[in-house]
């Protein structure tokens, strides 16, 4: 079953992500993806993540697809105007990519080319709408397409945002625009996620809770300081600090979070940030 079918079936769905290399040596990228192949439903390929220039998501998706791994094509609005974005949607379609995650993207000020001209021609809501329009046989300007693509459209949301209401308002707009599933920013506080889901479930679109493998107390503190909408509670940081095997502790935390939240949502999206080899261990520990 593909991602669309799995989510439709109501089965608890697992996705993960891999980041393409900065360069053309794809061995490590593919090795990591291979480790995920039989354990997850689909694998996101990030789009110049953290605004760092690297191999593109679309090429990465095609490589995964060739190996029998279902890819999720991530598209940010940072680097392409509406002409390039729509064209890439068509490109994805002819290359057999159906799943597209439409996101705003980190600002280039955070990446390795801060001198770049920010594009942000359209936003994630409009990108979703554009993809939906294309399925109906026309581009953003209503001009007829020669053959229309077919997508399974995803979007992202930050459950830990404070205040939460603007996030929920935008989430609702994304649903209206055509989002068929959500993969969330990392969550470490199940009680807050529950509050979020109380509201989010009203939209009737599956939500895959984001889990970032935290491998040290330092990383947790870094995220608390720098990553928006993410808060690692003090007791988790303490646990990591005391643990002899920090990675093992991180895996345990991730598994426990999944167990605690799996009844609240429709799936989990695991972002291992380089430690994709540990995803099977997380899933084992979570009983998935």
């Amino acid at each position, binding site marked *: 079953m593909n991602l669309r079918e799995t989510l439709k079936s109501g089965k608890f769905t697992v996705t993960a992500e891999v980041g393409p290399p900065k360069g053309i040596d794809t061995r490590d990228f593919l090795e990591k993806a291979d480790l995920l192949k039989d354990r997850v439903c689909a694998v996101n390929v990030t789009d110049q993540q953290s605004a760092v220039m690297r191999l593109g998501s679309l090429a990465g998706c095609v490589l995964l697809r060739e190996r029998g791994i279902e890819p999720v094509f991530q598209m940010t609005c940072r680097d392409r105007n509406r002409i390039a974005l729509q064209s890439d949607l068509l490109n994805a379609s002819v290359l057999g990519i159906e799943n597209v995650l439409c996101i705003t993207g980190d600002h280039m000020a955070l990446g390795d080319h801060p001198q770049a001209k920010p594009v942000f*021609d359209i936003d994630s809501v409009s990108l979703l709408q554009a993809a939906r329009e294309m399925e109906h046989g026309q581009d953003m300007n209503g001009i007829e397409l020669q053959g229309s693509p077919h997508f399974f459209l995803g979007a992202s949301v930050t459950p830990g945002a404070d205040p939460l209401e603007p996030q929920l308002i935008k989430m609702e707009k994304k649903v209206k625009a055509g989002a068929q599933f959500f993969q969330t920013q990392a969550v470490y506080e199940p009680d807050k996620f529950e509050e979020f889901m109380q509201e989010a479930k009203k939209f009737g679109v599956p939500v895959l809770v984001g889990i970032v493998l935290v491998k040290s107390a330092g990383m947790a503190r870094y995220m608390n300081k720098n990553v928006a909408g993410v808060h690692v509670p003090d007791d988790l940081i303490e646990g990591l600090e005391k643990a002899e095997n920090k990675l093992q502790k991180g895996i345990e935390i991730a598994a426990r979070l999944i167990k605690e939240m799996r009844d609240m949502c429709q799936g989990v999206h695991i972002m291992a940030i380089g430690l994709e080899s540990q995803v099977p261990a997380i899933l084992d520990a979570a009983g998935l």
Partner: protein
Amino acid sequence: MIVSELKPMEEIVGYLEGESKVFLVGCNGCAEACQTGGSKQVIEMKQKLEELGKKVTGYCVVDFLCNKILVRVKLLSYQDAILNADSLLIMTCGIGTQAVANAIHKPVHPACNTINLGGSRGEWPGSERCLECGDCVLDYTGGICPLTVCAKYLINGPCGGAKEGRCEVEPDVRPCGWQLIYERLKAVDRLDVMRKMVPPKNYSKMSPPKYIRSTIMWDVEQEEAKV
């Protein structure tokens, strides 16, 4: 008010490579206020260049280099010194430099960088900025411009990049624009407009329309052509 800053001296000297004689032009408008192109800075520049072995054939400070007619009249009285120079070094904003370049058949060099204000602030000294986008969205953003206040020009709500109400880009000086908009809309009981699906902006309106592109000078020239 247009804000300018002096370029590093090495950059300016680089422009003058291969030239020995230069004429300096300053501006008594914004550049004087920014201390980049008033009389004081022009005289300082003259001394610096002379120390570096350049000959300054003359200098003048115009009240408002952005006033094209004023520029032409003023430069006329320095004709000899200007003709005697290899080039002109203009100590003002990008508009003034272009105005001089347009008024005289000599190479011009900019001595200043014009600082981006993240959209024009007009005469207003506060943080409200206008991008002059030609397609105002202030109605459904609580009177706060999302194009100048949001680093990503978002028009349908916030991204996930704000932390404690601050933008991921320069959090020390940038609040999350969409949080400001959200709070404003909530305060005036208009949060419903945030739910409006705002269509993509028409950026073709961000260029000046034809009738603005024709300037007073252009009109004068058209009249002259008729005579």
